Structure formats: structure tokens, C-alpha cells
């Protein structure tokens, strides 16, 4: 049903497939609203959640999606340091494959690791974030949330605010939104925006007020405290003053825009509590849509073919 066997990233991913995933996510949203939130779609399928990096939220979201679809799941937390000690990435991959599984959901700190995995195993690979490269399921759940809110994506104006250079969420959102016909503007400190960002077909604006004025929705990224006080950013206070999404800043604009955040939130840094908890924020919808979108992706990649072959 989807054209590609794996979901590695949204760069070059077909628009019709993104739309199919979003539409399917909406049908699973209904399932999640039922008293018994479980369907037998992936009964008998085994999925390994292979996490080389801690990410409680993403792992729980995937795990829940798998359980709601009645798949068998195994969690495998590996550390890349064990790889450095001798066991190669290939060994780890082949060991897992030997256990006769159907799909691997992988989080890895290195860009390209999921593609690399597909070269060593036959199972379906779903990228749950590869370093500073892509995080396609996050972008799909973001787009599902935008679609739910606005009813369309084409022509939508989305500002992505924060540390773009180190963000897989930004890169996947850029590719996905561009493919779906939305307009994207990146905003953040110039040291945290890749020098070649505009080559990806987006605009760059360092003035957050202008971006707020322009945008229909903002995707506010987490600013990691490790970046502060080094060579890239002078201080939390400076970041907050220049880019923080505060109630005061938003109140200067007449139009009420939608606020998203992939979590976890640094309250008082990139976003104020009052904004994060306000009606214009759809942060908790994103969490719920995360489960629904991941159900849709798993269903379409692992089980959709046999059951809905003609639709």
C-alpha cells in the first residue's frame, strides 16, 4: 500500500503516501477514543524496538501503538559504546534478524544508521530518529496534528523555531511539509541554522516576531541546555529574549496562531508555561496523534497489504 518498504526519512517520500498515512491515522484516532482501544490488525507480527539512545517518549508511543495493534513487541536497549567495544553494528543487526522478526523500530545517534540497517537485514525498518538526520514519524504526527487543526496542509505557513542544526525533527518536517505543499520558514540563532538551509527550499528569518506575524502555526523546538554558554549561544536569557515564545510576544499579534512542540518542553526557555498550556497550543494533541500516526505507519507497512489490498 505504501510505495517504500521502509520508513527511513521524508526526503523524497511520496506525497500520496504521506496523505495515506495521515488519513489512516485519523481512523485510528477513532479506535483510541473507544473504551477498548485495541484492534487485531498485527496479530502474530513481531516488532523490535531497538533503541541505541534513550527516548522514553518515542519508545512508549511506539510501544503503545504496537500493543493497540496486537503486535508482539520486544524492547532492546543497546548502547553505542558496546559497539565501540567490538560488536559491530552489523552483528547486532544480524542477531536481531536471526530471531525471526517482522520489523525494527530504531533510534540511533548516527545519521544514516537506519539505511545502514536495511543493508544488513531483511525486516522492515522504521526510523525513530537517527542523530541529526531525520525523525519521520515525528514529522508525520506533526502534520497529522496540523491537518486535524486546519483541514489542509497545502499552502499552510509553518514556522520552525529553535536549534535547526541539531534537529532531526526540523529536517523531517521541512521535507514532509514541502512535499505536502506547505510553506516553511526557519527561525533561530544564526549559529544554529545550517548554512545551506535555504537549499532545502525553505526561508530563513532571524526575527521571530516577523515569523509569528507570517505563520499559521509554529513548531517550537526544544533548546538543549548543553548548547548554552558554549561557542554557539551565549546564555538562556539571550535566547529567551530573542526567540522565546512568550505570552507577551504572542499578544503583540492579532492573529491567533497554533503552537506545537515535539517535547520534552523546557518551560521558560523556548516557550513559556502560559503559552504551552494555552488553548492555542496543540501539544497534547500531538502526543495522542503520535500514537495514532505510528499505528497507521505500522499497520500500512506491516499488515495493510493483505487486509486492504484493493482499497
Amino acid at each position, binding site marked *: 500500500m505504501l510505495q517504500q518498504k521502509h520508513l527511513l526519512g521524508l*526526503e523524497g517520500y511520496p506525497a500520496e503516501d504521506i496523505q495515506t498515512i495521515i488519513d489512516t491515522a485519523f481512523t485510528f484516532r477513532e479506535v483510541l477514543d473507544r473504551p477498548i482501544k485495541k484492534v487485531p490488525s498485527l496479530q502474530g507480527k513481531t516488532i523490535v524496538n531497538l533503541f541505541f539512545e534513550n527516548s522514553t517518549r518515542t519508545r512508549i508511543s511506539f510501544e503503545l501503538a504496537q500493543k493497540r495493534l496486537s503486535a508482539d513487541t520486544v524492547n532492546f536497549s543497546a548502547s553505542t559504546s558496546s*559497539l565501540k567495544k567490538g560488536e*559491530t*553494528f552489523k552483528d547486532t543487526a544480524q542477531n536481531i534478524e536471526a530471531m525471526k522478526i517482522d520489523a525494527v523500530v530504531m533510534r540511533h*545517534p548516527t545519521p544514516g544508521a537506519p539505511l545502514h540497517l536495511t543493508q544488513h537485514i531483511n525486516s522492515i525498518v522504521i526510523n525513530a530518529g537517527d542523530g541529526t538526520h531525520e525523525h519521520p514519524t515525528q514529522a508525520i504526527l506533526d502534520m497529522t496534528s496540523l491537518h486535524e487543526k486546519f483541514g489542509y496542509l497545502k499552502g499552510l505557513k509553518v514556522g520552525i523555531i529553535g536549534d535547526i542544526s541539531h534537529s*532531526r525533527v526540523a529536517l523531517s518536517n521541512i521535507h514532509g511539509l514541502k512535499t505536502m505543499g506547505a510553506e516553511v520558514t526557519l527561525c533561530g540563532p544564526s549559529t544554529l541554522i545550517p548554512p545551506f*538551509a535555504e537549499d532545502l527550499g525553505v526561508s530563513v528569518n532571524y526575527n521571530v516576531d516577523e515569523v509569528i506575524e507570517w505563520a499559521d502555526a509554529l513548531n517550537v523546538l526544544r533548546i538543549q541546555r548543553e548548547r548554552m554558554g558554549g561557542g554557539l549561544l551565549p546564555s538562556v536569557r539571550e535566547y529567551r529574549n530573542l526567540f522565546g515564545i512568550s505570552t507577551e510576544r504572542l499578544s503583540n499579534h492579532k492573529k491567533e496562531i497554533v503552537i506545537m512542540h515535539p517535547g520534552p518542553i523546557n518551560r521558560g526557555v523556548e516557550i513559556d508555561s502560559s503559552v504551552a498550556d494555552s488553548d492555542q497550543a496543540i501539544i497534547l494533541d500531538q502526543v495522542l496523534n503520535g500514537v495514532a500516526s505510528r499505528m497507521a505507519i505500522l499497520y500500512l507497512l506491516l499488515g495493510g497489504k493483505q487486509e486492504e489490498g484493493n482499497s
Partner: protein
Amino acid sequence: MKTTKLKKQVVLKGGMILDPMKETLKKGDVLIENGKMKSIGKVTPTKSADVIDCSGLIVTHGFCDIHVHFREPGREDKETLDSGSLAALAGGFTRVCVMPNTNPPLDSPESIRYTVDRGEECPIHIHPIGAITKSQNGKELTEMGAMLSEGAVAFSDDGLPVTDTGMMRNALEYATMFDVPIINHAEDLCLKKDGVMHEGKISTQLGLPASPDITESNMVHRDLELTQLTGACLHVPHVSSAKSTDHIRQMKKSNNKITAEVTPHHLFFTDEDLITYNTDLKVAPPIRTQADQKALIKGAKDGTFDCIATDHAPHTIEEKEGTFDLAPFGMIGLESCFGAVNRVLVKENKFDIIRLIQMLSVNPRKIMGFETDLFTNGNPAELTIFDPNKKWTFKKSDIYSRSHNSPFIGEALIGRVRATIVKGHITALV
């Protein structure tokens, strides 16, 4: 590949003789007697002579690569002087200069002596390049004088740049006493940081940490200025960017002590080839953009680059099979060199084949002060025989190196080495 001892008389019959010294290419035979050049032209073989049919082939000077890593001592699992020699022979190389970043590094007269002695047991000529600083730590000069007496031919901390500008000045200053080239791997490590590829659209798409072209050109420019200041010989290795090429071209106009090399991989690939995270293309300095590639080709054409060097850098499968961040920098290049540069320069960019052979034979020998007139009667035969038009696909089975980290596997090459003659033996590729 088969190596046999040369018969008393060997005649290379009916080929085209390419003389890179006289810049001629004409039909003729070569007579080798007792392993030495006897005559060139029309040869009537005696009954007992070994006649080798060279029709359709070009016979020329043995290729010389002044930049290879043979990993001995220390990482004999990756390459040894013996296995590296086989890779060289397969690529038509009769002579190489090995870089000193072994373990321990070649930073003493004793280690230079060891390499020279070991090289004598090998089927090709091997010359060690000594380290500029002890342990390649960039802090203390090595005993260059004594190392030269033992057989070092140049100095380099390759793999690492000499970061400290004062230290680089001292090294160049000191080397003026001996008039030997200093070779600096130019990358500004402060700007490179954890960069694993060229910074551009592709690195942005791949989400990989990257470094811009001035990471190289900045230091190349520094080295050129220091050369101007000191009057030393500077050889710039593996130039990868348009900007460095411009700096070198400019400075060469007024300084004839500057030479430079370009690699087959920087001429052949662009950063777009990294789109699949192929770790075999992870190299330092990195593969850059199409614009840089064009500038390098132009630099080869106008003589900014004196020679081709492969920077043959073997790494184990285990290391290269890891993820992109962990994989070491470098690729092997001896076996695929001629087919790659002949395709890019001669076949695709109308480069004169004589010029290309000069960049593979006479010019690198000149830089290192080796004998260049290989066709002189009485000199030991050191020849390469190749088919200039053979189209072939480079395969794993074409590799003789102990390592297999080549991005050329699967690539269509044009021109293929058929045989190599050196040290009284002929190696034929079957």
C-alpha cells in the same frame, strides 16, 4: 596476477611507446637485456628472447605514487609493505612513497632504516617519508638530517596537520638545509571540529556534521605564505577544493619550490555520491562539490597540480562497516587509479594522455628527486604497459590490497594496466 622473473632478453613488441620525458608517443619495440633497458625502436628479437605482444597497448615509464599508507609497522591487518606492493603492481605503480603515520610512526632514523630494509625485500621500490615531528605530536622536530641519510625522501605528519603555525615555520626553515619537500595535510582542526564530510546542501540533507572548503584552503594558504617566507620546498597533498587550487596556482607563478598533487577520488566523485552514507567515501580532506571537482580538473589541465597521488589508505571491513561517524577516514586507490583518472581526464575532459602519464611518472619522481629518465639505456627496466581504451567495471576481485575499502567498486573505468616491469620481474594481470 602473475609475477615472473625477466628472461635474459625480453622484447616488448608492437606497442606504442609513450616517452613522458620527450613527450612523444610512437610505435616501437623495447628490448630489455638482463633487466636493463637495451634499446627502443625497431627490435629484431633473437631466437631465445621472450617476445611479449604489446599491440594495442602503450608502454611507458613505471608509475610512481608519492602518497600511500601501507600501515607497516603496527596495522599489518590492514596492509603490509608486501600486500601494498601487490596493490601497486596491479595499478601499474613501480615506486611508492609511504607515509609515516604507522604505529609507531616513522619518526626516527632507525624506523626509516627499517622501512628501507623491508622495502628492499618487496617487489617494488618503496621510499619512506619521515615524520615532521616526533610521534607526530606537532611539538618537536624529528632528526631530519639523520633520517635523510637513512633513506627518507620527504617529511610529513600526514593524517594530521601541523597545526601550530610557528612549528610549521620551523619545519620549513629546517628543511631548507636539505632542500626536501615538506608535505602538510592541510585541515584547520578548529574549523573542522567533528566534521565528517564537506559542508553543503548534501551534508544538510544527510544531517552529518560537516566542514567548509576553507577548512583546507585556509591552511594551504598559510603554508604557501610560510614557504614564501622561508624559501623551503612545499608539496601540497590531496588538494580537494577550488579555493586551495586558486591559492596554489597564484603562488606558483612566483615560486618554483611549490608542488601539488590531486587524488583520483577527488577528481572522480562529488559530495552527491555520499547520499547513501557510503563510508568508503569518508575521506580527509572530504569529497567536495561538483564546482570543486571542475576546478580540480582545470588545475590538472593548467599544471597547478604536478602529479596524481592516490592517498591509498587501507582500513578493515569491520571499521568501515560501522556507522558513518565511527568509520575511519580514507580509501584505497592504487588498483583503480589509472582507469579512474584516464576516464575523467583523458576520455571526459580531452586531456592529453602524455600529460596524464607525466603526472603519474616523471613529475612525482621529480618532486622526490628520483631518476626520471627511465628510457636511458642501461637503466633498470621500470615500465608500465596499459590498454588506454579498455572499458571495465572495477570489482572486489581486482583488489590486491589487504583491505577492500574502495568506493570505486562497481564504477565504470576506462583504461587498464596490463603489466608492470620492475626489479627484474614482470607482473602480468590476467
